[in-house]
């Protein structure tokens, strides 16, 4: 029976020429871009301050932390997983960076290496917990390490922040090249690399394969465990990098940094069109998702909306964005039957 239906689908899809198919693809790609554009128009009309160079640079500056965490989250979600520990990894890696540079007084380069190293190592542990202990879902393992990481970050100094970071680290958070924040350029480079990594390397494709169909991937000779470990390690590295920028910006590391940042990251990835079931999602989509959230927060601030109400609005946007996706999927299925 299903076979007959499937056969029919071929006929149908043959009617769509390839160009139309990709047009459709681009439409769904640009759907979120359109939403971002509409937000821009709306806020430009409702606030004079919105469309100024200062404010736009402020937006991308504010977005850079979530942009990095979202990339790690994208990888996790692509493999049908999730990484709830990104905020804790950010806090722990920046705290240890501050300890190394401020309390011990080592070279800032070592501090940067510490932050990335701690993040990467933490992510590696996430990956090992998932693959070697066979915990049922990374929701469990990364929720556990979320608490562990936060606890450790607090223990380091007994919950006290560490201020007065070296100039080089401050540079990451505050430097500007012309009007453009350095952190934004750094994020841009990371995004380009990640795009190439996901679409043009073997490991990148393996990430999609594992997320799309774990068993098929394994039976195609893909080392699923290694792919998952890589993914969570990269997520940790991203959190470490975000930790450097964040503490550089405020010239201090504090143990409650990045609290609940995982929610913004998840939101950005999902708004950006990734599927919770894995295997579907792009760096490009995530970038737009990050921007939508950043523009929303910034614009609503300019409109003097209270932080509490903003929370509700962003929640509604997430539900709305995913619902649009559900509708699109349903339509596709309908077309199929």
């Amino acid at each position, binding site marked *: *029976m*299903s*076979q*007959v*239906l*499937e*056969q*029919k*689908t*071929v*006929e149908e*899809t*043959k009617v769509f*020429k*390839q160009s139309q*198919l*990709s047009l459709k693809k681009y439409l769904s790609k640009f759907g979120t871009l359109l939403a971002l554009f509409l937000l821009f128009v709306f806020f430009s009309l409702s606030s004079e301050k919105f469309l100024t160079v200062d404010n736009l640079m402020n937006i991308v500056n504010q977005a850079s932390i979530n942009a990095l965490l979202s990339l790690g989250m994208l990888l996790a979600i692509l493999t049908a997983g999730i990484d709830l520990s990104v905020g804790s990894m950010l806090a722990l890696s920046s705290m240890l960076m501050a300890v190394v540079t401020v309390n011990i007084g080592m070279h800032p380069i070592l501090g940067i290496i510490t932050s990335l190293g701690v993040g990467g190592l933490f992510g590696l542990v996430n990956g090992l917990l998932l693959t070697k202990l066979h915990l049922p879902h990374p929701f469990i393992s990364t929720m556990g390490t979320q608490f562990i990481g936060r606890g450790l970050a607090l223990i380091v100094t007994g919950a006290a922040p560490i201020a007065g970071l070296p100039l080089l680290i401050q540079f990451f958070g505050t430097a500007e090249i012309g009007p453009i924040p350095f952190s934004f350029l750094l994020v841009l480079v990371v995004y380009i690399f990640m795009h*190439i990594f996901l679409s*043009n*390397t*073997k490991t990148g*494709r*393996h990430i*999609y*394969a594992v997320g*799309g*169909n774990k*068993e*098929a*991937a*394994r*039976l*195609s*000779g*893909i*080392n699923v465990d290694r792919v998952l470990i890589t993914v969570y390690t990269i997520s940790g590295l991203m959190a470490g990098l975000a930790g450097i920028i964040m503490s550089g910006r405020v010239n201090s590391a504090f143990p409650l940094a990045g609290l609940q940042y995982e929610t913004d990251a998840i939101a950005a990835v999902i708004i950006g069109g990734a*599927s919770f079931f894995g*295997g*579907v999602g792009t760096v490009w989509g995530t970038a737009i998702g990050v921007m939508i959230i950043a523009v929303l927060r910034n614009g609503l601030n300019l409109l003097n909306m209270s932080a509490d109400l903003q929370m509700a609005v962003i929640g509604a946007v997430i539900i709305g964005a995913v619902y649009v996706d559900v509708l699109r999927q349903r339509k596709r299925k309908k077309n*199929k039957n």
Partner: protein
Amino acid sequence: MTVNSADLLEIRGIKKSFDTNVVLKGIDLSVKTGEVHVLLGENGAGKSTLIKILTGVYPKDDGEIIWNGNPVELNNPQDAIHLGISTIYQELNNIQQLKVYENIFLGREVNKRRILSYINKKFMRNEAVRCLNELGQNGNELVNMEVGKLGMGQQQLVEIAKAIALDAKLIIMDEPTSSLSGKEVEQLYKVIDLLKQRNVAIIFITHKLEEIKRIGDRVTILRDGYMIKTLPVKTTEPDDWIELMVGRSLSEKYPKQKFKYGNEGFRVENIMVEGATEPVSFSIHYGEIVGIAGLVGAGRTELVRAIFGADPKSKGKIYIDGKEITIKSPKDAINAGIALITEDRKNEGLLLDQPLDFNITMASLRNYINKKFRLLNSKIIKKDAENYINELQVKTDSVDLHARFLSGGNQQKVVIAKWLCTNAKVFMFDEPTRGIDVGAKVEVYRLMNELVEAGNIVLMISSELPEILGMCDRVLVMNEGKITANIPIEEATQENIMKAATGV
């Protein structure tokens, strides 16, 4: 069965199309009370669609359904159940964590009072015990057990007991023996005999011809959406049915080519299949296609998965061209030149939401890495994928199409392309033609011929005996995890294969 008993169910001229695809082209069928009426036909003949119309899942386009002499409309599954039609699906519809009686009364729990009431467990238990006892079971023993802890055979009995509780006059059984062990099958036959004595009619779908002889009263053969003929089982032979079922001689269906046998190219020694008592050894020569026959659960899939390194910790030795190779993971197997075309292509073979070129090259990406930046060369990936698509005549306009949108036969070709792309030398096909149409089947068979001709090793697991008899040069038969027969095709018959498969 009483010969003159009236028709319980009569259907006339049932037609059904899905858009332009005509699936049923006018089916007539009558079922008498207390008879076992077998529906026989190849995949795609229209059996499932007919069943779904009888159970109210699909509306019919045209035709009449007459129940006890009155025309009826079946608009939804509830209508069918109220009439007294129950269905035992291949995939049982039970809830594993619930007890037997809870499953039997699932969705129609009996309350003590009309409103604000506890459910009446005592009543439901007693009813469940009664139904189970009627099937010759020890109801008291079974009724409080968790369904998930029962064997497949007993789980099926619970479903049948549910049908009894619903006072079913007609029970439709869709390949009920396909997942049962020999003992459980015998038990089911006994239950069916009991049901017949209670004047329950049974529509029985099966691909096992010998089974029809054992329990069937009449057999109706469907082909390509037509009702071909209804025959009494007693006075006809399986060969008659096959001819009607296939509608042409086997030689057209199976484009078998004979090649000269060469050296031994592949050898497996002492592989232990999970749950078996003896290890398995066999070898394959160049120029031959070796088939593995056996019932579901005989350990055939487990054997090829063990060879392929898909399930860890399999013992034994594997040789290609006399050289021993070590396989600890599918990756090792692929590197050694082994391919496993799995039975379940959607869950184990394809990335449905990725384009065809992605699917075709996913097992061999290391061959597409540019030396310079370790990046993939997507142009060559596309070009290679296009070549395979042309070669295998996959019906698509572009390699950018997502695999989801292909038909079963074309999806299977994409999976095969994936393994051709790895430069494999040993091809293990697990039910390669399941669920694909007749035309695509022939293409898969031709491809097997070509593989053998080009000097590859081909092994095929199949549950369809005609396919084994039509395409293979030698048949290995498995039962309970071990090989019970090794029969050259000239000596192979349905009977001696089935004997070895059932371990009689």
